[in-house]
């Protein structure tokens, strides 16, 4: 267990992002501690995916500060991984997909293979190892993508709607993997539109609305008594935009 190893707590201050003159995120500030997964919820278009991309360094912020506890951004980046809503499978076997980032990290061949196989086995994906990754089902691909991220042993893992468009069984399998990854000491920050999933996985909730973090609270408290009126309306299933 490394509890963030130099990344956490993460301090975000006044973060903004503008695309084509349209503000997507405005004055976003929050602090993430090591611990159970943090879950970003909010209506479509609230800026959830954009926020993950900014934190992961895939997009340059228009303003504000992202401060990792001890490490400068470029170094912190190497201790992070991200899994996208639509898993990106390289045109090779599932095992080779898991090995790919390990090779980039400079792990020698036999060690790389052993670690990839161990992670696939751990997540119950051993049978898929030699199948072409792109021929797998959506749920299997998403689990391989999670295993690939877990194999990198990141201190911080970003998940963008990891179970969107998956059936309940596949969603459950994905959640088990996320729980296992979090139990290893990796901090998970994920988005979801599935409130049940947020209840099942979240330690704390960040509620994003119109490009702002409107509420950040422990999950139990948030679901019992949301403080912000927008959050209360969202939980009641009212349409927000």
């Amino acid at each position: 267990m490394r509890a963030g190893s130099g990344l956490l707590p993460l301090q975000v201050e006044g973060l903004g992002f503008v695309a084509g003159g349209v503000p997507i995120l405005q004055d976003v500030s929050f602090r993430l501690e090591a611990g159970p997964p943090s879950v970003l919820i909010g209506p479509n278009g609230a800026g959830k995916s954009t926020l993950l991309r900014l934190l992961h360094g895939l997009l340059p912020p228009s303003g504000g500060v992202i401060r990792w506890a001890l490490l400068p951004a470029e170094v912190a980046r190497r201790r992070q991984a991200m899994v996208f809503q639509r898993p990106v499978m390289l045109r090779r076997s599932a095992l080779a997909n898991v090995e790919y980032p390990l090779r980039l990290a400079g792990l020698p061949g036999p060690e790389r293979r052993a670690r990839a196989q161990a992670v696939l086995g751990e997540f119950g994906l051993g049978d898929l190892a030699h199948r072409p990754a792109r021929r797998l089902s959506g749920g299997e691909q998403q689990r391989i993508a999670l295993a690939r991220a877990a194999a990198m042993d990141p201190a911080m893992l970003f998940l963008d709607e990891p179970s969107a468009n998956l059936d309940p069984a596949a969603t459950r399998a994905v959640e088990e993997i996320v729980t296992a990854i979090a139990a290893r000491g990796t901090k998970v920050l994920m988005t979801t539109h599935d409130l049940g999933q947020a209840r099942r996985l979240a330690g704390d909730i960040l509620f994003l609305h119109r490009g702002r973090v409107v509420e950040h609270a422990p999950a139990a408290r948030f679901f019992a008594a949301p403080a912000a009126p927008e959050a209360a309306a969202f939980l009641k299933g009212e349409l927000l935009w």
Partner: protein
Amino acid sequence: MSDFQDALSAAFALVAGQDPALAEIVGLSLRVSLMALALAALVGLPLGALLAVARFPGRHLIIVGMNALMGLPPVVAGLVIYLLLSRAGPFGHFGLLFTPSAMVIAQAVLIAPILAALTREVLEGMWEEYREQLHSFGVSSWRAVPTLLRDGRLALVTVLLAGFGRASAEVGAVMVVGGNIEGFTRVMTTAIALETSKGDLPLALGLGMVLMAIVLAVNGAAHLLRERVARMSG
């Protein structure tokens, strides 16, 4: 019609009898086109891949220029190479004009833009899909090139085939820079052109048949290879 039948049976006899002159011509054609393909691939594939991932001012200009060069008339390419390689030209002292090397160069120049343009097209779509994930892995756009070439290998086989087809089928460039010298720079297409104009239809037709058979065989082999790799890697 009987002319054609006579020519056809004579052609079969030539091919079946493994006529040494015919074998030599076929052998040289294959060597020249395959070397040209290798040379052009060495330049065209990485260049196409770079254009797929890199974003810089002038990129569109290069792409438009490359696409235009895909339609470069072989005779014109041949003429330019001829001028460059001729005694008085800047590369004249290498003494390459009217040698198989000159033919390799001409065909490579002809097909390199085709390989580069098609490679860019194939890999750009893949890059679109891979970009964020590879950036997340810490792979820069430049360093993604080997990954794209590797993962795009199925589609790139087709690209190489297109290049090989163009190289082995063209007459104009090798005629101008090779000179169609018997036993030295005579390849299938130039021989067909010559024998046809001389009226020796059996040899022309026999060569035509071999050329067709080679193109078919190469495509068939590539198809099998693709199927096989596809089954392994999706």
